[in-house]
């Protein structure tokens, strides 16, 4: 995909005060670019979920946005802890969120399923002790 716009957003673990800012910026940019409403909405939902996952579950990482004429690519990379059982993690309602996250209303176990549902291509790679990489592609039009 030939990319015109490339943005990177560092996301820190446990930083609830800034949680949602990266996805809000992504959404604002897609609206400015005039990306169609339904694609914008899908990216908005998926980027919010993946950003929150970085805050809640990861040891820190970053979110990367690429926009080209044919699509939007959203990649999340973190530095751990990694997911031991991806199939389990992909199940609706399954969550390993902490008490703190649950007390803030997170941890419904819908994050990954929501991402998969909204992306046109969804790929997740994870290694315990190393980290997780999620790549999502959204076709334009």
């Amino acid at each position, binding site marked *: 995909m030939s990319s*015109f*716009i490339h943005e990177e957003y560092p996301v820190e673990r446990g930083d609830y005060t800034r949680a949602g800012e990266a996805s*809000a910026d992504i959404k604002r940019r897609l609206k*400015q*670019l*005039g*990306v169609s*409403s339904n694609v914008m909405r899908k990216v*908005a*939902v998926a980027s919010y979920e993946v950003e929150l996952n970085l805050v809640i579950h990861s040891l820190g990482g970053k979110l990367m946005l690429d926009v080209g004429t044919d699509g939007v690519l959203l990649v999340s990379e973190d530095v751990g802890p990694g997911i031991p059982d991806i199939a389990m993690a992909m199940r609706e309602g399954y969550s390993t969120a902490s008490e703190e996250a649950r007390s803030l209303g997170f941890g419904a176990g819908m994050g990954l399923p929501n991402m998969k549902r909204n992306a046109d291509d969804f790929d997740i790679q994870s290694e315990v002790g190393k980290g997780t990489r999620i790549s999502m592609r959204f076709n334009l039009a």
Partner: protein
Amino acid sequence: MEQHNRYHSVRLDKTRCKGCTNCLKHCPTEAIRVRGGRAHIIDERCIDCGECIRICEYHAKIAITDDLSAIHGFPHAVAIPAPSLYGQFKGLKSISPVLDALKAIGFEEVFEVARGADIVSRAIHEKLREPGLPKPLISSACPAVVRLIQVRFPDLIPNVVDIRQPMEVAAMIARQEFCRKHGCAPEDVGVFFITPCPAKMTAIRSPLGQEKSACDGAISMMEIYGQLLPHINRILANPTKPTATYYGVRWAVSSGEASAVCPDNSLSVDGIHNVIRVLEEIENNKLNDLVFFEGNACMGGCVGGPLNFENNYVAKNAVRKLAQECSPQHPVENVPVSMMTKYPLYFDHPIEPNPAMKLDDNLIVAMQKMERINQLVEDLPGYDCGSCGSPTCRTFAEDIVGGFCGEMDCIHKLKDQLKVMAQQMVELAQTKRE
């Protein structure tokens, strides 16, 4: 950018504008720029919310509404007061004196918009029973919020409830009832909304969801407040009794609508910036289990409109107390179901998106512009001071790319440039003759 000739009630009085940055900073759609020492409103972005009217201490932002004298343009005039009008008078014990005061200043009849709100309450109540509705359904009562959705949240347009606002329903019935009672032609009756805000005036001139408004004009509450006042304390032998219910009157305050249509699972938010925050959440699918969302651009709801005389907290309390004199019957019992088909209560025109925040119609050009904006932003100080006339450094960069200003309009950039030039002057002065 595409040229639009949109009607706006919110205008600038150039003679009063000092060119300060107060309005710039508060506009929810970044629709104001200061150029040549005066504010300018970008037509296609303005949603007529009136935030700038409230914030401008020089009163340079004004709302254009009709003069009371406009009623003389018709053989007969009917007033349809917003229920927020009831909250404007201190110590008022009943709604009746307000209705009679309107008659005293020249209207032949008065029809309460709260009565329209009763009918709309029932219509939304029925609507919510339909299967497969988008969640949440978003109220269409506040025209500033509907326009905000057109500009900033066009993807939420399908969530907007397709039922006309109480003002429109009231105007339709008021005209019909007047004609039936007095045996005159519909065009001989001028129906005037007594308005708390400029957004309603704009909604009459450029209607949302319908071709033509049923109202002939809007008269600002602030404008007639002084004229109503002498009549408020008069005791009449046969006062005009309010016919709306407690629920209809309560539409004047935030949560009034939601508690009438969906008390168990609704959210009411007031203040345009708060409304934006919640619409963002709706857009992120974070409020999918919510059934109904009521957003009001003004704090406190319509009682907080910029054309109200009374403080919104005081007015809210007054409306709450006055509502108790009305029928406690819920609109579902009070409004017959036959009303749902007797009048055209539903939109016959779609709400169109107005993506005025878009950089360009062509995606490639938009991406090139965004790249250039990013480069420019990196070089700007990030103070968001507004001295350049754009609300933030980012919007300034957007305006440069749009061709509306140049980099040296940033005084901080200019200062740096002058430093370099001064240094060059020194060097030049120190140069020895060859």
